[in-house]
């Protein structure tokens, strides 16, 4: 099934959204970027996204709470966690709670695009293949 992949990207560091949005646009995703978790959750309440990509460590609400909110509201949505503070215990906690994938910053946009492709495939959605290597995204 070919369709535009609806992606919500949440990170309180503005540069992350600025760098990743164009990279995901290139593979045909429609990306909505948020820096405030509460605003992101309000948007999630309104719209079922195919994929939510969220940072973990944020003020007001952390990525695990966002994951739990998404799961309660839209069980089909795939959640990908990104963090600059990755540790084994946190990775296991996130995996145990049902996150689709977990990636440590810094990473290359291509790494995230590959995860997005995997998530899309798990949803039965086909998207364009990524091309080219881009610079790493810093935490």
């Amino acid at each position: 099934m070919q369709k535009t992949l609806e992606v919500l990207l949440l990170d309180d560091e503005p540069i992350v959204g600025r760098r990743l949005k164009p990279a995901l646009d290139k593979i045909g995703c429609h990306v909505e970027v948020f820096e405030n978790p509460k605003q992101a959750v309000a948007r999630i309440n309104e719209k079922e996204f195919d994929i939510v990509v969220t940072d973990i460590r944020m003020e007001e609400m952390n990525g695990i709470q966002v994951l739990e909110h998404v799961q309660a509201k839209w069980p089909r949505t795939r959640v990908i966690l990104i963090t600059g503070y990755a540790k084994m215990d946190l990775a296991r906690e996130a995996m145990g709670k049902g996150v689709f994938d977990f990636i440590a910053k810094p990473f290359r946009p291509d790494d995230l695009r590959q995860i997005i492709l995997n998530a899309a495939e798990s949803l039965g959605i086909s998207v364009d293949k990524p091309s080219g290597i881009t610079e790493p995204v810093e935490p």
Partner: protein
Amino acid sequence: MSIIIIASDTAEIEHSIAQKVAAAMDYQLLDRRILEDTAKKYQIDPGKLADAMKTTPSLFKSLSSGQWRYLLACVEAHVLDRLLADKIVCCGLSAHLYVTGVSHALNVRILSGDDSQSEKERENRLQQRKKWSMAAYNEDETELSRYDLVINLDQIDPAEAVKTITGAAGYRKFQVMTYSMKCLSDLALAARVNVALLKTMTDISVQARDGSVIVSTKAGNRQKRKKVETIKELAGKVEGVRYVEVHVKKNLLGVTTG
């Protein structure tokens, strides 16, 4: 998919449980049979390799501390490369001591339940393993809190133990993710660099991240510059290394260690 690492104070029990878990999950079994390949790969004596896996160096043995560390580094690098393939049950290779921080590696300790051993024999064996693991990796392998799952065969039948392990391996938290695979490939790269350096040097510690490698070592003032150059040259030749940084601590004894 995950990696299951099984350790016990009794090698036979460790291997028997690992074999059964591998068969039940249709996973590959990685055990001491790979030491032959390790010896060939690094052109070392397989007998010395097997010896290094169970004894520590001393003044009375032919194996020096430097040689011993090099042999262990060869095993570690070879095992880590094999573990990148995933869906593996590993035993007998002390992987529980160096596969650390990898969330999809389920570390299991089997408490033996071996009736043929007296309490004293069992205690001696544990003390030997503790001494070896502390010397080799600065980790006490008899410390149970470092394992994800501990099964006491005095209380649980081997068949039930196998079911428990396969059940736990199915938990979501032990599944492969991008982060855990990256942690494993970083460990594998660090181990390859370690082998390249330990062949001719001592006092080496290596960390890797995404192709960048940090090597920590010791050197006296006179040897410092040459040692840094040599490390950069040797580590830079290892496949997958893109950048090498060397941190040198002053060798207070003024002894050249490489």
